[in-house]
């Protein structure tokens, strides 16, 4: 508890060079997570209830008994409620795809680094191939083949992003496998599985955590991008990317439709990326 408060205080310490303390971004991220989890309790209205007489109402207007704090969209749905529910989609797609791609990438990368030989050749060449194709293009092609939808978006993102983790895990495993403590563990009779997951993995988690936070921001953007193109979560489910896409058509007449989800997207990705930067600086002993 004391350690936690100390960490908390340290996060709000003024930054060298006058930057914004990282605690601000942690708070923004934490609030978005809480809002997403508690969406049904927080959202003032059902996000999918249409009100065709209250279409495109500007923020702060009331129409037929509904108060639109952030305005209403082209079908008269409450924008605030939709933004709140949209957080669920953005965050859950990002969390799931990071976990999935991380698990696949880290496992393959560690195996390649530890086993060497043909495993290394196959895995690392595959990584090169995947990383040489623009990820968003790859994702679009795969969604087009598999069909859109929540599960498919997660699968596609995991499938396109695992090489990032694999490359880092591979390099770190190479470095750590030669550490004396790995040799000692082997001399004690630990098998390859135990050596990899008990002795190597915990020691390479720090750089992987940095990759994961940066990837998290990217996953949010990818989901939004796919939804914007109509390849993500399908209507009427609220998603920031899809809302941006619709709002684009009304940007001259109803600016609020695209602005609020875009603002949320911006804040989320900014926060996650800055947390990732700070984490990487914190975990890198040379810059500490």
């Amino acid at each position, binding site marked *: 508890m004391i350690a936690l408060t100390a960490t908390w205080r340290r996060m709000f310490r003024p930054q060298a060079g006058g930057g914004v303390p990282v605690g601000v971004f942690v708070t923004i991220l934490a609030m978005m997570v809480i809002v997403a989890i508690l969406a049904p309790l927080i959202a003032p209205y059902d996000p999918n209830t249409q009100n065709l007489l209250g279409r495109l109402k500007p923020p702060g207007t009331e129409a037929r008994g509904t108060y639109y704090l952030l305005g209403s969209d082209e079908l008269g749905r409450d924008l605030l409620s939709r933004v709140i529910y949209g957080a669920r989609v953005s965050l859950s797609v990002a969390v799931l795809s990071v976990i999935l791609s991380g698990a696949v990438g880290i496992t393959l990368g560690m195996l390649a680094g530890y086993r060497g030989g043909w495993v290394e050749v196959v895995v690392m060449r595959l990584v090169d191939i995947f990383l040489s194709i623009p990820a968003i293009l790859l994702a679009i092609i795969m969604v087009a083949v598999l069909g859109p939808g929540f599960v498919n978006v997660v699968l596609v993102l995991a499938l396109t992003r695992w090489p990032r983790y694999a490359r880092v895990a591979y390099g770190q495993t190479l470095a750590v496998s030669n550490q004396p403590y790995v040799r000692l563990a*082997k*001399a004690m009779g630990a098998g390859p599985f135990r050596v990899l997951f008990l002795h190597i993995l915990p020691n390479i988690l720090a750089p992987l955590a940095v990759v994961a936070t940066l990837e998290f921001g990217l996953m949010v953007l990818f989901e939004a991008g796919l939804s914007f193109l109509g390849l993500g979560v399908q209507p009427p489910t609220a998603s920031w990317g899809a809302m941006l896409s619709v709002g684009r058509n009304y940007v001259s007449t109803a600016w609020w439709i695209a602005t609020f989800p875009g603002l949320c997207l911006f804040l989320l990705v900014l926060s996650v990326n800055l947390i990732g930067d700070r984490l990487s600086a914190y975990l890198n002993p040379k810059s500490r």
Partner: protein
Amino acid sequence: MAEAKTLDIRNLSIGVGEHSVVDGVDFSIGQREIVALVGESGSGKSLTALSIMGLLSGSVRQTDGTATLEGEQLDLGNDTAMQKLRGTSLSMIFQEPVASLNPLLSVGAQVAESLIVHGRATKADAWDRAVGMLRDVGIPAPEQRARQLPSELSGGMCQRVMIASALIAEPRLLIADEPTTALDVTIQAQILHLMRRLRDETDTSVLIITHDMGVVASVADRVCVMYGGRIVEQAEVHELFAAPRHPYTKLLLATIPRMDGARKTELFSISGMVPDVSAWPEGCRFRTRCPLATDHCASRPPLEPVGEGNDHVTACWHSDKVEGLA
């Protein structure tokens, strides 16, 4: 032979790529015996030890030779078979005690590792025995220490932890690769004393690898001297120090500074450097640096008994002239 040797190595050869780095090494370790393997860096002593554990990796390969452990043939190239022996019949400790412990695991868990890996004890039981083992190797307050991370312990304590983790398996053979190199002198003495005591108490045989003649003199029963990937001399420890019969051994002993010699004399050193693996000469590999070398040395001298009995062997054509050296 009345009883099977704990370890018997015959014609062990190891290659790195196309170069041979260990060439036809023969030696054995009897029960309860402490054998020292001595030599300069690059003499192949650590590789010899790693190959006995089946831990050679990468481009380093065993190319020839056999090893038996208490009469049982070891399949050194078979990792799965060797893994069953590591942490049960065979244990090994390394230099760099701090780096040899996983920085993120409690030392108690690391001592218990071999018991858990081989399913020889339940988690709770293994922990209790690890704490007991830490007490045995002289770590104060072992219950508390066992829960700490290696970074919270000193280098000497980490070495004790490593020894505890090797001994908890009750191995038949403990291999110690330069166990005292990274430690200061007082801790060195304690660690050596500990190893001798544990040999006496648990009947474990020990192969200790070192380049420190002081360590050899204080702990070993028998000594094998390696040069250029071959054993050049092997003898009981007092015999070796009193009457070395290989010029390399003789010169190696002459390099030890003495308290009783004349002051202000330059310290003796063997001229030249250990040649690179690719440049080892034909025949006797020490001949490029040997003051006794003749044309005869271009053919390889066999490892033959010298003096009375068969215990003292040396590989030199001129072993009778060594006494007058240096």
